[in-house]
């Protein structure tokens, strides 16, 4: 059977690709669209390194099929910065050393951004629970939590 022809929007740009049913959205992003910011840790939904937004909903790209992305709007880490200007979360991750090897970082950033969209002023506990599906083998998490809190604060100040 022929491959499926899929049209989807990633970070505001329209993309078209051909895919086999088995290919996940993660495979498509990385291997077909060459958007390699989104990482693969486990490919089974456990680590969150592949976190992306799918029509405004935080999901693991490894548990979505490429064909399921047809007609949807996807946001990945590549869409966070505006030119050279980093997103406040990216800036605070840098300042607080929230990234070491960096494999978990794109997923952490996307998941944290999703949290701040629904809760601009989260408690530390809320951040820890929200990020429970994002594993990090390096930082011990604390620096990540501090970075998210600092970014939340800055984003609230900018807004008010």
């Amino acid at each position, binding site marked *: *059977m022929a491959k*499926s022809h899929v049209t989807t929007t990633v970070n505001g740009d329209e993309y078209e690709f051909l895919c*086999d*049913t*088995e290919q*996940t959205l993660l495979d498509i992003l990385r291997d077909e669209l060459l958007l390699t910011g989104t990482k693969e840790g486990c*490919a*089974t*939904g*456990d680590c*969150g390194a592949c*976190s992306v937004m*799918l029509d405004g*909903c*935080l*999901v*693991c790209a*490894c*548990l*979505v*099929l490429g*064909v*399921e992305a047809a007609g949807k709007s996807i946001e990945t880490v590549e869409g966070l910065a505006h030119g050279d200007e980093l997103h406040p979360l990216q800036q605070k991750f840098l300042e607080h050393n929230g990234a070491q090897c960096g494999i978990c970082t794109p997923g952490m950033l996307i*998941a944290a951004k*999703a949290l701040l969209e629904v809760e601009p002023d989260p408690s530390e506990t809320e951040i820890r*629970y*929200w990020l*429970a*599906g*994002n594993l990090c083998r390096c930082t011990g998490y604390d620096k990540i939590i501090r970075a998210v809190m600092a970014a939340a604060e800055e984003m609230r100040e900018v807004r008010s």
Partner: protein
Amino acid sequence: MDELRYEAPETLDAAVALLAGADGDARILAGGTDVLVLLHCDMIEPDLLIDIKKIPELTGIAEEDGGFRVGAAVSAMELVEHDAFPKAWPGVVEGVKLIGSIQIKGRATMGGNVCNASPAADSVPALIAAGAIGTIVGPDGRRDVPVEDIATAPGQTSLGKGEILVSFLFPPRPPHSGDAYRRFTPRTEMDIAVVGVGISLTLDDGGTCTAARVVLGAVAARALLVADAAAVLIGTPLDEAALERLAAVASAACRPIDDKRGTKEFRIKVAGVLARRVAQDAYERARGN
């Protein structure tokens, strides 16, 4: 290997026709959080995946006959964020909230949780305690079955060839009703229930229990609706003596296995302790409305 086909029908009839007419292994794809893991690990080799998320009957939440009808393919996140459902069935929402991370909840569905038929599925004890009815449609038409009659053993359901679980009907709530779900896991998030307990209660104006459903998860091949445990609560104000008896009856009903998460003995003990606590949660909620 033959190529894997993907279909996303927009009507229930088309989905049933595809499923019933398929030659090889045809699987329903709801949120895919179980199916795609199995596919990735080569534990299944289906010929056809039928995505049911474009079918209106499977994706809506509506009030019906004073209760609710929730599509089997509604995502966990959508249910948790709904404005009316969580107030009516906080225990069901407690179960659904425990299904994996935020990312997993963005995709996972209650229909998938029930049909995957894991004995540790977190929404299932609460659904059974709620008295939820599953509406199933297949080549021979439509039938309604209580959720406790859907999973039969690990990975096995009573659904026949071509049948799809379409929706869950939640009955209207009498006054002074409340439900609750808790599970025991070594970690607070991202873990699989060692024991789960769902309880739904109705009280009279004086606080005496008039109806109860007590369900234990992860202590047998499928979730257990324990009528004896409900019986010890009915007619009592859930005083110490009643809770004591509930714990003993719940523990006695367990038929668990030993595994890396817990021994038989541990599961039996924890089932009693959790049953007490969940009964108290449900009681507080019932008193409050």
